[in-house]
């Protein structure tokens, strides 16, 4: 029952996030979600053996249909937060094109948004790690009790993916 509710929410969060951005941040994140979904699809396919999902509607093995879209929502959040932090800390009106400092703020997004999302997903049992295959051995992050490897994975992903989302978001709208 709990998993069914989470699965329903995993679909509902997409319009909810879109609407919340539209209403409170005056920002259309449809393109960010769509382009982020492409990255999410890629990430989920190549890492499929490492996680076991427990949702019902799936697209390939146990990968749920909603998970790539959940990545899209997360990337929209990371891009938004990263750009806000960039403008606030560097006292800029907008991001300067090709400014490599944005990569640093994207990584902050991995820590602030990605890791808590991942933690919630694991702790609620939406997915679990295939530890036998992963052979992670760096220990766990204090407070979160999550493997350090998950954090490093998020950091590396957030180095790459937000550039894709930022570049294509307007085109996908």
């Amino acid at each position, binding site marked *: 029952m709990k998993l069914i509710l989470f699965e329903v929410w995993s679909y509902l969060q997409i319009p909810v996030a879109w609407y919340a951005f539209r209403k409170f941040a005056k920002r259309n994140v449809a393109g960010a979600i769509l382009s982020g979904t492409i990255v999410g699809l890629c990430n989920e396919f*190549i890492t499929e053996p490492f996680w076991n999902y427990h949702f019902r509607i799936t697209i390939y093995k146990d990968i749920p249909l909603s998970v790539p879209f959940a990545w899209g929502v997360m990337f929209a959040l990371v891009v938004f937060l990263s750009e806000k932090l960039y403008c606030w800390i560097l006292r800029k009106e907008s991001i300067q094109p090709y400014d490599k400092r944005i990569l640093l703020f994207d990584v902050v997004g991995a820590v602030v948004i990605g890791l808590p999302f991942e933690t919630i997903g694991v702790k609620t049992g939406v997915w679990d790690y295939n530890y036998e295959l992963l052979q992670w051995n760096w220990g766990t992050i204090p407070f979160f009790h999550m493997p350090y490897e998950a954090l490093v994975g998020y950091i590396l992903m957030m180095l790459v993916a937000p550039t894709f989302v930022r570049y294509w978001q307007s085109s996908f709208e």
Partner: protein
Amino acid sequence: MTVQMKYTILEIFSYFFVLFVWTIFRRYLKRNITGDILAGAIVGLFLEFSTKPVNIYHFHITIYKDLPLIIPFDWGMMFAVTVYLSEKAYRFVLREPCIKPKDKRIFLFDVIIGTLVGFPLETAGAWLGAWEYNLGKIHWTLGNVPIFHMPWETVIAYALIMLVGPTFVRYWQASFEGRP
């Protein structure tokens, strides 16, 4: 030749191969691909770290478990070649002087060219024994590609990676070379 010697030769070759491709581009195509390789290496590092248990490597110089230092740079080289050929194909097929910014048709060329470049290199690496797939544990079930005898999952993975990676490379290539 012992197996260890073969791995050593392959490892040395994999470093020289990146330099060789860089030189070919510089000398014959008048193109500096340093930025492409560096940007592509970041994507490669992400891919390799994320999918580490899929492959078992046999090289000596490693950065994380058995992941060789050179592999992310090999990805960088592969992305550089893909970006170059994809743009050539785009311009040739669409009769455009250059890539239009945000033109989604570039995805098609990136995926086709990227897979055509990446998949044979992946096949060569696996056949030569530079790495092997952890097939007993990753449970790939889509079968093998005829002739290549490689899992279909690798083809699909390349197509998806080439959908995403080249954008990062194209965006940051000049910046990583210190160009405006």
